[in-house]
């Protein structure tokens, strides 16, 4: 099922949560809404679900205008951040709930068989008689997904699905959700504030800030061609150096950097920690090492340039460097955006 958002607006009592968002989601696509808190991503998801009515614009499911269809008739599966499992029902009863209350009448055997199938799909066979309080967070989240899938939704919506889980469980569930999506091919939209989760999981990432879409594209597009300082900063660690742009070139002490499309005037150069090179002498920006942080895959150097900018960058684990050393930093790759 294709989903189209057309200039959707939502205002809460005093502030505007969503300022005219338009978005096309292809049938079977797995799309992440990524943004910091307050960026309106959850509000958008809730409007798609029908848990919130939009104040303007339209939401289409396929060719049907779904803007005013109430949630119970919209045919969406919604997975809540804190699972929202019915605590007084067993896992089996939770999953069967949607089938039992549906207008479409199913026989008891049919429902039981479907519950079994879904439990197998989410790898929780044999747990149907437990209560939600008796299983782990990761298991609860999988039950919540099974419950949402039980009613054959046209669209699957997940609100920070792994937000409340610890890192390892999160990584496992991510892989597992990808597999389920590949198996079922259901159009899926999920909200997250975790860039890694969005980039790992989604076919397409929609980055939001202040109730507006800042950039959308495949993980490759948004990582390689960030369109703004915000996206650059939000997607990962970055260093920024103040600079001025003249004739499409950013001027730095170590030389010029191409700044395509950047207007002349004050600007910032953004460099990822992996895109800086360190040498004890040679060409580059002179810098003093303040601290060396050892990590499993590399050593991270915190250094200050003579101009006073702080730089963070990673070097190979065998590099010999300690606090107080002076050396040269060379920029391998950088993005330049006009100073906001």
């Amino acid at each position, binding site marked *: 099922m294709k989903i189209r958002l057309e200039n959707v607006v939502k205002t809460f009592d005093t502030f505007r949560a969503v300022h005219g968002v338009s978005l096309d989601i292809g049938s079977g696509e797995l799309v992440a809404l990524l943004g910091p808190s307050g960026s309106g991503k959850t509000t958008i998801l809730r409007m798609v679900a029908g*848990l919130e009515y939009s104040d303007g614009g339209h939401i289409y499911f396929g060719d049907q205008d779904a803007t005013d269809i109430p949630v*119970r008739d919209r045919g969406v599966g919604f997975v*809540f951040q804190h699972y*929202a*499992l*019915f605590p007084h029902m067993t896992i089996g009863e939770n999953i069967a709930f949607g089938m039992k209350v549906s207008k479409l009448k199913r026989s008891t055997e049919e429902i039981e068989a479907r519950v079994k199938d879904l439990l197998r799909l989410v790898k929780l066979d044999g747990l149907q008689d437990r*209560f939600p309080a008796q299983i782990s967070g990761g298991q609860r989240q999988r039950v919540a997904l099974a*419950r949402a899938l039980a*009613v054959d939704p046209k669209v699957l919506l997940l609100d920070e699905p792994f937000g409340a889980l610890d890192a390892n469980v999160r990584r496992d569930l991510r892989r597992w959700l990808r597999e389920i999506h590949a198996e079922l091919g259901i159009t899926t939209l999920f909200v997250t504030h975790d860039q890694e989760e969005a980039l790992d999981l989604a076919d397409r990432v929609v980055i939001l800030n202040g109730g507006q879409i800042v950039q959308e594209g495949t993980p490759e597009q948004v990582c390689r061609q960030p369109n703004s300082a915000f996206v650059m900063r939000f997607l990962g660690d970055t260093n920024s150096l103040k600079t001025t742009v003249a004739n499409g070139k950013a001027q730095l002490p170590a030389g010029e950097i191409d700044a395509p499309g950047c207007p002349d005037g004050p600007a910032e150069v953004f460099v990822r920690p992996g895109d800086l090179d360190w040498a004890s002498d040679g060409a580059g920006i002179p810098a003093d090492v303040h601290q060396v942080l050892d990590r499993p895959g590399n050593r991270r150097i915190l250094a200050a340039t003579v101009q006073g900018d702080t730089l963070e960058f990673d070097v190979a684990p065998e590099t010999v460097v300690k606090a107080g050393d002076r050396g040269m930093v060379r920029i391998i790759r950088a993005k330049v955006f006009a100073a906001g």
Partner: protein
Amino acid sequence: MRRNVLPGLRLSLGVTLFYVGLIVVLPLAALVFKAASLGPADYWAIVSSPRAVATYRVTVLCALAATVFNLFFGLALAWVLTRYRFPGWRFVDALVDLPFALPTAVAGIALTALFSANGWFGAALAPLGIKVAYTPLGIMIAMIFTSLPFIVRTVQPVLEDLDPALEEAAQSLGGSDWTIFRKVILPLLKPALLAGLSLSFARSLGEFGAIIFIAGNKPFETEITALLIFIRLEEYDYQAAAAIASVLLITAFSMLALTNFMQARALRYTARG
């Protein structure tokens, strides 16, 4: 006793147990002791006398009816107070506690004045052939009035803490409002409803001040057990008073035990394991 990090355990436990013993257990024990000083035959003769049995019937039936009424009305009131904000909300919320705060005799006099044959309500109901004052109906209304806060105040906090996502989840799964209320909200309120119900019933059983003004107190018809105890006391028949009181005590205890048991069953799902 296991060592505890928090200080003052022994002292606070000692004071608490002493206080509970002095204020709660001792009087009840004295009551049982007094009643037990009668022989079994005398005890039985007193508690099963036709007049006493008539008071049990009136008291228990009226208390049950009042509790059932408050169950529905109290739930509705708690629902409205939690789910909606309207002008005067604060006032209504405060009014709920009034039956707690008001001396019950005041309530009794007010209700009697309203429902007597020439009172506002009494005069309006008389042409319909409904008599409230000096009938069991009056006893029920007095009980409803005095035990109203229990259900409201036990259900309200639970309703307030109910995660809205539960209802949203049920909606997204296609549940109608009525289905969601019946299958999701009501089962989660059940323990609180049971707690409120047992308190409300126990209070109704023992209510005295509010009832005696409106009841008429006709033996075998509108005489409540608490009044019969009082009458026996006035006759200096302490043993009979204690015997009849012990019946009320046992009834209230049984009700508490039953609802506690049902509450534990209703909360089974919270057990980890």
